[in-house]
């Protein structure tokens, strides 16, 4: 008899450390919830008459239904579901409209520059040189930092933003010279020079500059490692090689689109 009895388990942990089985815990939770409900329900019954509960439930249901039925109703628009292209207009009116459509299409096509054009995404600091629909070059650039510079005494304020819109290349220069404006001295904490000659700085704009109005230009930089970040004072800084290509490809009058 004693040989058939199971041997006592030596390695089993003490009974107190065994977590209760999941079903046990669930049962405990259910029991707790039941006890709580049993305690709460008589109080709820006392506070609310049956009629009140019904009215409140009905109001809640109506509000829920109203909320479910209020908002925005969306319908999918199938792709390629536009009106069919009318190739041979049947009526005189349709012929007139077809002719006008051709004219308008041609007018819209003429909006795209025939020669090269430049697009600058100042948010992502990318410059593209285009010809028609073709991208000739894409390169990182640096647009305006958006910083605000305040001059303590005189209270002048400068905002270093790159303007948005359509511009044109108005002039081009090799080995441009920077005539430093007031903010360049204010930023450095230097006195503003009285002699205009003291404003001249060589080499900081790189090999080329393409002016597109109001003192803004596309030029080179000494800080190529910062290309791709908005660090300029409003001009567009470009790396040496892309700048060379843009300078050679973009004649005067080339449109520059900045967004």
């Amino acid at each position, binding site marked *: 008899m004693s040989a058939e009895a199971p041997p006592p388990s030596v390695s089993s942990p003490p009974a107190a450390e065994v977590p209760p089985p999941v079903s046990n815990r669930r049962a405990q939770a259910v029991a707790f919830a039941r006890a709580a409900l049993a305690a709460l329900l008589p109080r709820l019954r006392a506070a609310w008459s049956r009629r009140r509960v019904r009215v409140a439930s009905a109001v809640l249901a109506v509000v829920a239904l109203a909320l479910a*039925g*209020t*908002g*925005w*109703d*969306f*319908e*999918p*628009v*199938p*792709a*390629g*579901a*536009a*009106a069919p292209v*009318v190739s041979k*207009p*049947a*009526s005189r*009116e*349709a012929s007139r*409209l*077809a002719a*006008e*459509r051709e004219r*308008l299409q041609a*007018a*819209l096509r003429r*909006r*795209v520059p025939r020669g090269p*054009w430049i697009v600058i*995404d*100042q*948010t*992502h*600091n990318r410059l593209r040189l285009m010809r028609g629909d073709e991208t000739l070059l894409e390169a990182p650039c640096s647009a305006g*930092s*958006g*910083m*605000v510079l305040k*001059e*303590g*005494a005189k209270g002048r304020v400068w*905002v270093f933003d790159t303007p*948005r*819109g*359509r511009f044109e290349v108005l002039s081009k220069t090799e080995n441009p010279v920077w005539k430093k404006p007031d903010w360049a*001295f*204010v*930023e450095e*904490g*230097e*006195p503003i020079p009285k002699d205009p000659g003291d404003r001249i700085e060589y080499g900081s704009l790189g090999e080329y500059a393409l002016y597109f109005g109001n003192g803004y230009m596309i030029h080179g930089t000494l800080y190529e490692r*910062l290309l*791709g*970040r*908005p*660090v300029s004072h409003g001009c567009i800084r470009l790396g040496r090689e892309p700048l060379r290509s843009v300078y050679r490809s973009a004649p005067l009058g080339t449109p520059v*689109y900045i*967004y």
Partner: protein
Amino acid sequence: MRARLLSIALAAAAASAAAGPPPARSSDPAARALQREVAQMRRERELSAGKGFYLRLDAARQRLALMLQGVMLDDYGTSGLELGVPEVLFVDRRPRSDWDLESISMGSLEPERQRDRVEIIAPTPSSTEPAEGASPAPSPPPAPTPKSAEEAYSVPSPYRIVFGEGVSLEVRSRGEGRRNRTLLRRAVDAAGLRLSDLGSALGLGSQDRIRLRVTLEADDAASLYRSLPPDVGLIVAGLPPR
């Protein structure tokens, strides 16, 4: 008296001629389709003659492009274009069938894109040369490197471009992308948009009549949110005839 009446009639006729042909609907279905197309192209020509940026949503080709003066600056592929109308107690308010031929302008982002500008107070300039033997004046600390667009702006999903004429464009994103937005902020956005939906459907606050919903790749949606110029216009092309 007769001459005066005649001059008034002539002036009225001249004014109506200057205003362009009346938008009478043709009985010929082909002509009707052309009429819509031509009206839309006229709108596009008007927009391309202006100085403002505009979005061109091509429903047939499923493209959303940022345009300026007829030139496409950026272009995104869309999927799942939907057209929504406000609904109150399961009754929706249908717009006029030619709403897409009207001018749609002054679009702005909702939630708004916040730009934190770094402000620098210029150091006082040293007007005199430092005395011999004295230590030179300390140079101003270097300006902090501004954040890139990805670091600066977190992108909600969905977001809306709300136009002045009661039209809005809801942009949803597909996939993860680099939105740079915390879970809590996304939950607050979602609750805010649901409340705004209820309000606009009930005619409180914003007066949205039409909502277009497009889905873009997450990176495209983020790129559009970060770079959308202020006060954009909208042209919707290629909607099926109604």
